[in-house]
């Protein structure tokens, strides 16, 4: 009897040890997975901090090989291209999201959903090719506008999905209460349902913005880049992501510095957007 008892005890102890070891392995693996992020952020901040100064933010890039210069045109370019793509993508995305949240059974909704899923998976370089063929060539030139359209196509699926999910979570009773009172359908949607789901929709919009702000591939042959400050969206424009790509692969030390500074700017903007989205999510959320 004593022998078999210790056998079982040994087994249990063994299993308990395995259990503890496993937990340790999981925790270790998780920490290792988060290390790259810390390394990247730390490295970028260390290199970028020394690059960011007033000249960096307000000057244009200098000719090749000359010291100094800044990224003012790229900063403005990034924001402007983003703004135009928001103007294109947000209304369209929200409308399609409303449609998908309302219609669940029709054939069109099925195909639309499929289309949105496929669109989400298209590599951004392929979108760049498409926009080059659709807009750049017929327009006869590169332009920030074509870059914005490309970014809008990339933003669209996430805006649509988050709008759809948010609106689906709202209770039917809200809509039906409004309809029962005689409010027309369109007013119900636009003035009651959408505002109620605003936090979720906005969160989706902000997250999709933070996703495309760093996109480079679709801008390579659409916005093309420019060493000048320009606000004309029908001309080529620079962007932070483009200059990081160009400067990083160059041999010039000061260009590398500029690229680090630009990387830090981008990461800061993404961090801020993420924080804003979390605030929006928590403060404006309507609980049912």
């Amino acid at each position, binding site marked *: 009897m004593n022998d078999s008892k210790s056998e079982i005890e040994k087994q249990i102890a063994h299993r308990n040890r395995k259990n503890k070891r496993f937990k340790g392995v999981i925790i270790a693996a998780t920490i290792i997975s988060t290390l790259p992020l810390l390394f990247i952020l730390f490295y970028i901040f260390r290199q970028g901090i020394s690059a960011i100064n007033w000249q960096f933010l307000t000057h244009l890039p*200098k*000719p*090749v*090989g000359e010291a100094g210069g800044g990224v003012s045109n790229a900063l403005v370019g990034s924001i*402007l291209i983003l*703004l*135009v793509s928001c*103007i294109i993508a947000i209304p369209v995305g929200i409308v399609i999201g409303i449609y998908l949240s309302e219609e669940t059974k029709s054939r069109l909704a099925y195909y639309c959903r499929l289309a949105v899923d496929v669109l989400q998976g298209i590599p951004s370089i392929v979108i760049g090719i498409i926009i080059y063929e659709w807009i*750049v*060539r017929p*327009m*006869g*030139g*590169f*332009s920030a506008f074509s870059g914005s359209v490309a970014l809008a196509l990339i933003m669209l699926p996430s805006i649509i999905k988050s709008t759809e999910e948010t609106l689906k979570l709202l209770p039917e*009773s*809200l809509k*039906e*209460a*409004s309809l*029962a*009172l005689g409010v027309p359908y369109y007013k119900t949607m636009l*003035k*009651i349902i959408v*505002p*109620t789901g*605003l936090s979720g929709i906005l969160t989706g919009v902000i997250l999709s913005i933070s996703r495309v702000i760093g996109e480079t591939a679709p801008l390579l042959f659409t916005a*093309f*880049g*420019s*060493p*000048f400050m*320009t*606000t*004309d*969206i*029908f*001309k*080529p424009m620079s962007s932070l992501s483009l200059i990081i790509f*160009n400067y990083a*692969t*160059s*041999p*010039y030390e000061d260009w590398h510095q500029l690229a680090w500074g630009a990387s830090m700017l981008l990461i800061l903007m993404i961090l801020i957007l993420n924080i804003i989205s979390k605030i929006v999510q928590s403060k*404006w959320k*309507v609980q049912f």
Partner: protein
Amino acid sequence: MITTSKAGSHFISYSINKTKQLTTKMMKFKKSILPLLITAFALASCGGNNSQKEGNQDSDENSNGILGAGATFPYPFYSKVFDIYNKEKGIKVNYQSIGSGGGIKQLQNKTVDFGASDAPMSDEELSKSPAPIVHIPTCLGAVIITCNLPGDPVLKFTPEVLANIFLGKVKKWNDPNIASLNPNVKLPDLAISIIHRSDGSGTTYIFSDYLSKVSAEWNAKPGKGKSLNWPAGLGAKGNEGVSGLIKQTPGSIGYVELVYALQNKMPAAQLKNKAGNFVAATLQSSSAAANIDLPADMRVSLTNTDDADGYPICSFTYLLLYKDQKYNNRTEASAKATVDLVNYVIHDGQKYAELLGYAPLPDAAVKKAEAILKSVTYGDKTLQ
């Protein structure tokens, strides 16, 4: 569910109140964001409006902005000259160095005002273009061979050894073929890593043109071109990328335009030219290489020059324009602006070439360039 019970009506009033609160909140938000969006959009379209005010219908051609793209070879030179041009004349020239292949393609697609290429377009490329294109040389550059070895030694190469290295037949630095040419250099027992261009490059064309002339094996395969099927090595984008990668990879060898080596303090090897002399790439040896009869359309190869003092891998670099500038919605003003720019580059701009390490155009070349520029027309009007 809607019921007539008390709970139901409470619920309805609750919902209505809540949504009222939210709509007012949203209205406040709208009030702040909307003007911002409107101003931003107005700014953006204002930029577009400006071009319209200057009397142009199309929005991408604007006499206050010229768009060019192409070779990375002369990029330091162009970037300086266009910067000076902007300061002197107030005209913005946006030049993107995407490689000679890119310059040619974008010009063929008519998405840029001018292209730039070190490799003159072949007859086949010209025949595939929608309209005749002229080549205007702007300066002379040299393609040098640079390496990343301890001590940054200046090495000597013969054409045969160079070809064998790039063919992948000579694999280590301390190979006797290299050592015999460089008795005073301690060559390490390190593998040779070849760095070439990953994009369509005029610099590649110039280099492969030279190799095709001096090595029958190279001529057979891979031959000469802007994008090659390299037997070995890593690719990097642009002269910038190649020099960047060489600087970081020990034991690497690659070909870049002279200016990139100068700016990055990388050693340039001396090559044995056709006459048998080991020549370094300098302004003099580059100019000497151009000491030949130049054809009227200036599409000429200067590599493996006969001149005794000439550096064997030199080339003109060209700006490419359509002979007839009247295409698409191009205005006469745009055409004149483009032609004026090119004119500036081949005359006043030349003084910046030497400062940066490019050889200025010899007089004979300038004369031929002027003649070509005079032949550029807008419809039937000449622009010069």
